[in-house]
């Protein structure tokens, strides 16, 4: 610590070079933060998917509907805490490019099974009272400037209303949630959908079942699938986590691509930083000689040079991560394509470790050389 002023002044020995080095490390960790955010976005919230929730879909594919009669049979099964159903609506608000998810739900059980969607009690009762009521996420409400009480027309694509093409929804509430919760969805009442659609009465998209004992997930899944085997609509049950993971895998291995890019970025930046460090120490050979003459031990020299390189890395990298965090706070820049846009704390920790690692690796060789330098050589070389 007492060497800090010395480190600081040697850092500014060549201002321009230090600034450029700082900036390239800054850029590297800014990119690191952003790429990790994108990677998280493409995992579609798998981290918060519940292990005690099972998803039942039609065995043939997700797009095939299931009969609503399954609900009672599921609820009556031993070990089931709660069961509800969702139906994908897939409508268009004003323009197809305004994509966001609209899902028909059973409001009461839905809010119970998904406590992560937080809704003020008066808005809950407003939703229960209004058949055309819908609740939307805060991010979605902000995107279109909606507030409670607004009437939202949405054109049906899969489901056609009995009259015309437009479904009207009243915004009964705006839900919020912790970081990582998708706040870009619209949930509306299934009874409204079912009574007003032209065809498909009594059909739902998929079931969500909360089981009493999460360790029994596999056995319960097999039990459900057995219950509906050999019917016209056989089911396939997975944990919600498995379901979300499967979905993310369908998009492709975005995670691996992001990691490859991060590796390329960090490798490049490490090279630049290490090269600069080496050169800066080389230029100061005579100074190192003087320090040694003054009685600085080899270890002290080693830690001074290493300290300088770690200091640069910390400054540049820290600012880079902070900048990434700030950008991420401003939300999804694509307007709805990446609903979960957060920089997870775990990745920030990894970033911090990488910063220190970068500083150490970049400073290692020059520090070692400086340590081994003989005073006579060092002074003569100048």
């Amino acid at each position, binding site marked *: 610590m007492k060497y800090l002023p010395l480190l600081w002044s040697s850092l500014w020995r060549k201002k321009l070079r230090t600034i450029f080095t700082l900036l390239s490390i800054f850029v590297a960790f800014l990119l690191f933060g952003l790429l990790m955010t994108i990677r998280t976005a493409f995992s579609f919230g798998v981290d918060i998917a519940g292990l005690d929730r099972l998803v039942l879909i039609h065995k043939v*594919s997700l797009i095939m509907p299931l009969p609503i009669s399954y609900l009672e049979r599921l609820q009556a099964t031993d070990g089931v805490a709660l069961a509800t159903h969702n139906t994908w609506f897939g409508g268009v608000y004003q323009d197809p490019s305004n994509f966001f998810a609209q899902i028909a739900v059973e409001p009461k059980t839905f809010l119970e099974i998904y406590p992560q969607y937080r809704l003020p009690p008066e808005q809950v009762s407003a939703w229960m009272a209004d058949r055309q009521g819908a609740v939307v996420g805060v991010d979605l409400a902000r995107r279109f400037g909606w507030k409670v009480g607004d009437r939202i027309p949405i054109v049906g694509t899969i489901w056609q209303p009995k009259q015309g093409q437009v479904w009207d929804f009243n915004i009964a509430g705006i839900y919020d949630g912790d970081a990582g919760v998708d706040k870009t969805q619209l949930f509306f009442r299934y009874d409204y959908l079912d009574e007003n659609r032209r065809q498909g009465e009594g059909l739902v998209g998929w079931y969500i079942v909360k089981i009493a004992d999460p360790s029994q997930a596999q056995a319960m899944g097999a039990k459900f699938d057995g219950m509906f085997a050999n019917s016209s609509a056989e089911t396939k049950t997975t944990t919600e986590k498995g379901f979300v993971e499967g979905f993310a895998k369908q998009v*492709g291995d975005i995670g691996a691509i992001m990691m490859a890019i991060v590796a390329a970025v960090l490798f490049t930046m490490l090279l630049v930083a290490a090269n600069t460090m080496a050169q800066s120490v080389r230029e100061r050979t005579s100074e190192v000689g003087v320090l040694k003459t003054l009685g600085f031990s080899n270890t002290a020299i080693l830690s001074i040079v290493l300290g300088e390189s770690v200091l640069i890395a910390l400054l540049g990298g820290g600012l880079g991560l902070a900048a990434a965090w700030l950008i991420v706070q401003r939300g999804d820049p694509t307007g709805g394509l990446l609903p979960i846009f957060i920089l997870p704390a775990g990745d920030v920790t990894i970033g911090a470790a990488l910063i220190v690692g970068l500083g150490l690796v970049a400073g290692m060789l020059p520090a070692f050389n400086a340590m081994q330098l003989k005073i006579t050589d060092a002074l003569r070389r100048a």
Partner: protein
Amino acid sequence: MLNALTQTIAITALNLRTMPQRLGSSGVAVVGIAGVVVVLVSVLSIAAGFTAAMQGSGSPARALVMRSGADSEMTSGLSGPEVDLVKQAPGIRLDERSAIASAELYVVIDLPKKSTNSPANVPMRGIEPRALQVREEVSMVEGRPLEFGTNEVIVGRGASRQFVGLTVGQEVVSGQNTWVVVGIFEAGGGVSETEIWCDARVLQGAYRRGNTFQTVLARLDSSETFDSFRDWLTANPQLNVQVRRETEYYAQQSRALTSLIQGLGFGIAALMGIGAVFGAILTMYTAVSTRSREIATLRALGFNAVSVVVSVLAEALALGAIGGVIGGLAAYLAFNGYQTSTMNFQTFSQVAFAFKVTPELLVLGLAYALAMGLIGGLLPAVRAARLPIPTALREL
């Protein structure tokens, strides 16, 4: 004038010839620039490959009829009588028997993906016997066409490669239905190569769709008859449909994903580029400062400032060019033709495609590399030219 030119050439040649002596720091700049080019070219090659697959699918001389309000084949629906009416529209190519059009169903079935062994939404299309005449680019590469009225299916080349169990002779069990693969087809690299095709009538039964379809794909007399075809259909009060050229439909389907990938590629490359430019600047500063005595000597001998500037810039550009070529080559060797598949969000179904490192992308990468080199050389070049001769000569 001529003198200035010879000076410039002489000193530039000297710089370039001595580059190997500065291998270490030059290498850093080259690797930095190459890294950026690899990332730029490979990310954009994903977008290029996806777009190529989507656009290779359509022909402007084919029209796709969907229910109005539907945003994809998946959400469309047409009844049997509506389909019959659509096939009577003017502008469709006719042969001696009837209109060359195919009413189709579009569903997805769950099949495991080979790469992850996890379920994926594989598109399945129910076709009518005329479908192969509507799509002239389709040809069988293995096996034979399907027999209508049976549970036989033919599978696109891409689907056969990406998903488990789609080879000739295999049975595909999906729910209570069993399909038999009898052939593999190709379709000019388009999205249909990710699809499984079966008889629409059989699919109607298997999926309890009654006498309904989702779309009609019609072969037009020529690309010009599209307007009359569309106007007749949209003006008909018995129908509630929208008509699009097939090419437009697929272009719209691919827009969201393509622009997302391109935005990502350019954004990352721009940020990384800043880092690489710093690397190049540092390298060139080093190059200039280790040679400040040489440069001062040259200036004292009467070489002018411009030739010094040009020589430094030329060296920076050379570094950029080498980085650009290495990066482009690496991206090409590593990713060109890499087979993968992703999900098309509009239809919730898989699209198989190959990464495509096009010549345009390589040129773009090289141009970007040169730009990085040029920007990186600018400041050091000015520094070199401004070097105060007496001090520099005294240095070291």
